[in-house]
Each structure stands twice: as C-alpha cells, then as structure tokens.
C-alpha cells in the first residue's frame, strides 16, 4: 500500500508512505482528521480496498436480521443467517429495527459491513470510536478473524483504539510518519542495575524543545516513550525530547513512583487511572491526565505492577 506525498502551502503535509501489508497483520495509523481524510481519498479509486468511513449510515427501518440477510444476498455469500447472527452475538437484537438500537449497537451493526467485503484489504476509519466496551470486544473478535485472510488498516486519532486490534502502529503527524513500538516481547530483558538506595536528591528531568532546555519535576510527567530511539517526555498533553535513555530514566525516576510498563514506555503510576484488559495477552494503562492518554502494558510487567500496587 502506497500513499503519495501531499503538500499544504508549500509544506510537506503528508510524507510518502509505503506500507508492507501482509495478511494476518493489522496496521494502525494514528493521525488527525485531515490526514485521515487525505489518506482515505487516495484509496478511493482502487477496487482492492474496502473503505469504511466514520460517517457510514445504515438502513434504519430494517431489522438487524433483515439487514444481515440483505448483506448476505447482495454479496452472494452462502452463509446462513442464523449462524451469522450467533457469530455476531446479535441474537437478542434479531427483530429490533436498526433505528431502535442503542447508538453503540447501531454502530456495531453498521461496522459489520466490513465482514461482507470481498476486497483483500479493509480500511477502517475510527471503528472503535462510538462503541461501548462490550461491542468493542465483539468487533475486535470479528476483526481478528477477518485478519486471518485479509489485510486491515485502521485509521484513528486515538492510541487506545489502535492498541485494541493492531499489530503494528504508526503515528502520522507534523513530524512525519513513525512506527510506535508496542510489540510485547517477553524475552526482552534489560540489565537491571543496582539501585542507589538513598537517592532522594532533587531530580529534575532536563528536556529540549525548540533549542530550549526545559526542566521538569518528575511528578509533572505523565509518561515517557521511546520512538525510534529518541525519547519523548509527555507532560500535560505536550511532548519534549530528552537526551537520556529509558534505562537511565527508569533508574532516576524509580523513587518517584514511575514504572517501566513496557520496553518503550515508562509511566507515572500516580497518574494511572485504569488497567484495561483487551484480551488475555494485551493490556494497556489509561492515565487520568487532561487528555485521554493510553500507554501499553507488557504482559510480563503486569505481575510486577500488580505486586507494586498490592493487587
């Protein structure tokens, strides 16, 4: 999959992007509304992509069962309606008209259109945005099954949504197109150095932004991530470059209640609100900062975290 570069007022707005899509792998791109639209628009004229846009509507006056029947017939598939209704977990809503469903369920039913797509690549815009927890789980299950045969690309502005079902996540913004490291590798062991026990001296974290050196008190920091080798310190929605490595930062911040929750992430435990469990093997942490920030949590780190929090 390839995207052409686009310029806005002489500035590179969308870099040239080449994605190596393989089946059994779904890719997420975290980006803003305008870039999402531009990406989708580049794919419109190719018949190998099924585009699901956020504004997709549904036939409101059909019942759920009638809609599924219609989708089966119009795509000439040989599935049985009853079996599919079971698979979609929509048995109870069988006779309910689409317009009478809750908004989350209605969106979920609308999203089922991607299940019937015959194109080899599915592109979804903000699939999880309007879904409630339970419907998210159902849809994630369906997408996981679909990804066995198809390539899936998810465009979203929310890291949490991308974490739910993407194997590789990229961030696309004014600083370019960069992969985020969210892989959960267990064999990854860092050499844990001995901690300086009496280290209660003042610890400022020095960061750089636009050639200015900015010092942060550790409690201010929400979380720290490593993107392609460079360290970004997130404070109150903004991010700042830092010259230290994650291991160094981890040691310096340990006494301030920070926790290395992932190979590429250190999180301020004081700001963690929720531990989200997607499946048995994937977790993330939601922070209670102003912006809805979500940080991945390795499975191997979960026990450590639980011990730390006495849960």
């Amino acid at each position, binding site marked *: 999959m390839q995207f052409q570069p686009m310029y806005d007022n002489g500035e590179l707005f969308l870099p040239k992007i080449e994605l190596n899509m393989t089946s059994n792998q779904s890719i997420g791109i975290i980006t803003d509304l305008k870039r999402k639209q531009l990406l989708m628009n580049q794919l419109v004229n190719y018949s190998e992509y099924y585009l699901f846009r956020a504004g*997709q*509507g549904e036939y409101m006056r059909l019942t759920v069962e009638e809609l599924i029947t*219609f989708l089966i*017939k119009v795509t000439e598939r040989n599935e049985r309606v009853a079996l599919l209704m079971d698979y979609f977990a929509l048995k109870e809503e069988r006779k309910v*008209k689409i317009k009478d469903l809750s908004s989350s369920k209605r969106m979920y039913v609308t999203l089922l*259109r991607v299940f019937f797509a015959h194109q080899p690549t599915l592109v979804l815009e903000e699939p999880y945005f309007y879904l409630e927890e339970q419907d998210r789980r159902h849809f994630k299950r369906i997408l996981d099954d679909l990804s066995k045969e198809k390539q899936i690309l998810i465009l979203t502005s929310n890291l949490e949504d991308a974490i739910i079902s993407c194997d590789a996540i990229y961030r696309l913004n004014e600083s370019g197109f960069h992969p985020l490291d969210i892989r959960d590798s267990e064999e990854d062991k860092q050499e844990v150095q001995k901690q300086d026990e009496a280290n209660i001296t003042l610890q400022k974290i020095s960061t750089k932004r636009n050639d200015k050196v900015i010092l942060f008190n550790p409690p201010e920091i929400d979380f720290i991530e490593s993107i392609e080798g460079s360290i970004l310190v997130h404070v109150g929605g903004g991010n700042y470059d830092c010259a230290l490595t994650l291991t160094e930062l981890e040691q310096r911040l340990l006494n301030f209640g920070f926790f290395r929750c992932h190979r590429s992430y250190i999180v301020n435990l004081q700001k963690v609100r929720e531990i989200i469990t997607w499946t048995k093997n994937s977790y993330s942490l939601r922070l209670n900062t102003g912006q809805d920030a979500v940080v991945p949590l390795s499975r191997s780190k979960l026990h450590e975290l639980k011990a730390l929090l006495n849960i």
Partner: protein
Amino acid sequence: MSISLKRARAIFVKDYKEFTRNYAVSIMLIFPIILALLFRSVDPSVPGIFAVVLNLSFVILSCFTQACLIAEEKERNTLRSLMMTPATTMDVLFGKSSLVFVMSAVVLGIVTYILGYEPTSIWAFVAVIILSIILYTAVGTICGLFSKTVLEASLTILPVIFIFTGAPWGTLLVDDFPIFKVLEYLPSTQLVYFLEVRNTGFTMGDLFPPLLITLAWTVVLTIVSVVLYQRRLKDE
C-alpha cells in the same frame, strides 16, 4: 453491463421493506387513489380528467418515490457502500426501479378501475402506461442524483411536477405564446392526446405518434439516467 437477478432481488426486497415502513413517503401511494375517488363523482365524460390524474400519479408515484429511494441512500452513505459490494450499477438501478414500477402499476391499475376508463386499444394503452412509468422513474433517478437528502429530493421534484403536469395546460396558451408549442412534445401532453383518441372511428395511425414520442422520451431519459448515475457516483 450484467444484471444479477439475485442481487437485484435482494435490493428490491430491502427497498420494499424500507419503503413501506417510511410512512412519510409511502403515504404518497394513496394519493392518486384519493384523487381518483374525488374525480369519479365528476362527469366521467369530461375529457382530460383521466389524463390529469394519470400525469399527477406518474410524478408522485414513479418520479418522487424513485428520487426518495436514491436520495435516502445517498444521505446515509449506503449507496457508496453498496458500490463496493459486487452489486453493479445496473443491479442497484434495476432493483429500485422494479419496485417503483410494481407499485406504480398496481396503483395505476386501481385508479383506472375507479375512474372506469375503457381504453380504445388495450395493448396500446398498456404500452403507453409502461413506457410512461419507466420514463418517470428515470426522471426520478436523475432528481435523486442531484439531491443529497430526502428533503432536497422533495424540492427538486417540484420543477418536474410543474413542467410535466403543467404542460398540457400550457399548450392552451399556444396562440399567445408560440414558444409553448414545444410543450406539445412533452410526454404528459402526448398522453393527453393519446387518451383523447375516441373509441369511434379511430385508426392505429392516431395512436402511433403519441406512442412513438413517448418511446423516444423513455429511451433517451433512461440512457441519461444510467450515464448520470455512473458519473455522479464517481465524483463523490
């Protein structure tokens, strides 16, 4: 351009269910019947009454419902989604048009029965009605394509009502405005001429010109609507 009957049927059934549950639009089906009941008490020998009812019914039934069906799909972006399924343009148009056709044919049958009209030649009458339904459905498709919402569709239909049902009256003013002579060639005026051919002493020669002109309109408008449909969908 191939048509899969299975897919067209699926679209037909889906649209039928959607349409019958959309009371705001499906109430239009009763309108021609009420009109017919009202005019029944009028002296049936008055010429043109039947033609007026028919012309209005065509616009309300075939044209308006088809425009609403298409505009509603556009409003909800389901048409775009439908284009990504194996269903072709012809499947979609055929499925929708056949629904409109069946509904129009049934209602017009009832209207003809209520008004007690006896056609001079049953075959010519059926032919002209079928052609007219197709013709007005094509006009409805075009209206639907130029409107983004159902509300807009009911507005774009207004000029159609005005031109097509008004044309027979316009021809009365031909002496004052010679330009109105053009209106004689509109299908609605031709329908009036067609129905005015009386039982006594008619020849096939009297029936053919209106039939041919209607046929020409049907062919041209159908082609235009299909081409426009493909164009407009690519633009969006």
